[in-house]
């Protein structure tokens, strides 16, 4: 089987499980929405403040939801010896990595669409300059999904997985938060062309961590 076929197989498996169990739809998306609302409780609902910081709040919410998505991605591998099954399956490390990361990315993108609509409604911003906005979002999502999948497998067999992954993941994806937020700010409120350096940074991050993940996943899975 080609790499692409294997990736489709693994991603398809994860997405089919999500379609069946609906955890992202029924738990992670509501979580994101609740966090967005909570921000309004925490910050002055005076529309000025929320509107100004809306991109930052959006991306923090996405990051927190990503923690849940990564955790879920590996929880499904914890039962019935599924990790052993993946090891024995003969599927290659890179394919397994790309498949799981792709499934997480698809779910995060769906979440982001919902959250974006909510941010427009709740915080009163307008999504101008869609082109850099969408590119930045895609690059950021790929970067977060790749890094999350990598740390997820690193912690996969450990009992402390759920508290360990956030500690490991969040410092590393700080540049993604920075870049995505600045890109959104430039696209929405500022000079759209200012977004491009950030899109570039996000793209480099995404490519780098996807490459690292492909190299390291198989080896880390063996120890899980």
């Amino acid at each position: 089987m080609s790499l692409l076929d294997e990736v489709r197989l693994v991603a398809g498996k994860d997405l089919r499980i999500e379609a069946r169990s609906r955890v992202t739809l029924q738990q992670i998306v509501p979580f994101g929405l609740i966090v967005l609302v909570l921000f309004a409780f925490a910050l002055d609902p005076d529309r000025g403040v929320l509107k100004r910081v809306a991109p930052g709040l959006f991306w923090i919410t996405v990051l927190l939801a990503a923690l849940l998505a990564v955790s879920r991605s590996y929880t499904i591998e914890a039962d019935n010896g599924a990790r052993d099954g993946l090891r024995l399956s003969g599927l290659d490390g890179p394919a397994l990595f790309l498949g799981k990361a792709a499934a997480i990315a698809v779910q995060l993108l769906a979440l982001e669409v919902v959250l974006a609509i909510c941010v427009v409604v709740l915080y009163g911003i307008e999504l101008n300059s869609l082109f850099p906005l969408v590119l930045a979002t895609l690059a950021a999502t790929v970067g977060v999904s790749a890094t999350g999948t990598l740390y997820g497998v690193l912690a996969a067999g450990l009992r402390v997985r759920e508290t360990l992954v956030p500690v490991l993941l969040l410092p590393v994806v700080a540049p993604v938060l920075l870049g995505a937020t600045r890109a959104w700010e430039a696209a929405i409120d500022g000079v759209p062309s200012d977004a491009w350096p950030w899109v570039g940074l996000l793209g480099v991050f995404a490519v780098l961590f996807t490459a690292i993940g492909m190299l390291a996943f198989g080896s880390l899975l063996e120890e899980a």
Partner: protein
Amino acid sequence: MRLLKPRVAMAVGVLSLASLVTLVILGLFVAPPDAVQSDAQRLMYLHVPVAWVAYLAFGVTALASALWLWPRTRSMVWDRLAGSSAELGVIFTALTLVDGSLWGKPVWGVWWAWDARLVTTAVLFFLYLGYLALRRIPSSVDARAKRCAIAALVAFADVPIVHFSVDLWRTLHQDGSVFNEELDAHIHGVMAFTLWFGVLAFTLLYVYLLDRRYRLAALDEEREEREVALAIAERVAPQAPPVPTPAPPVEMGTPR
């Protein structure tokens, strides 16, 4: 078992102690106070060397991790080195953040500023914490070494990105340049000498502590290997014969 021969380690230890004492004298008494910042600036003689060691330790951890991961050079030496250096690194990073803050308050009026260097150091601190959390999880030596090595290298790849991104952010906003200027104060003469001397002194201290921590890690591993060998021997040896108890008197049926 050791990074340095015992005599060399002792010499390094003595030298580092002596140079640290000398540094205190130089920094507090010999070097002149700064024109702008007066005595507060003397913290630079602590801050810069400590920050240097924090990043040096990080570099050592990353390099050692890479050497462990590379199959040709794989050896527990590198894993022990990476772990020991990380423990020192986190301490020095914390020191950097604290004394940087102590220096910043009298000079800038704030405990903290969001410029590239400070933010990167803060992120470095968290990356270290994550690495050390990984090291503490009980596992087989090989599994732990692999996880930590990969985590260290990912962190190493990340730090320049963090620095670059915060830098880009600050230049685009043209904020914070005044902070950088203060830190880049041009120094010369006695002050420059004291600064470089400080770097040397703290590097010696780092090397000495690294050797000691490394030895501790090696002894730890040796103890574990002995325990495993003992466990294998016990499992293999046939059951020891039970302590003979006096045989109960046999009732002989009286023959008819």
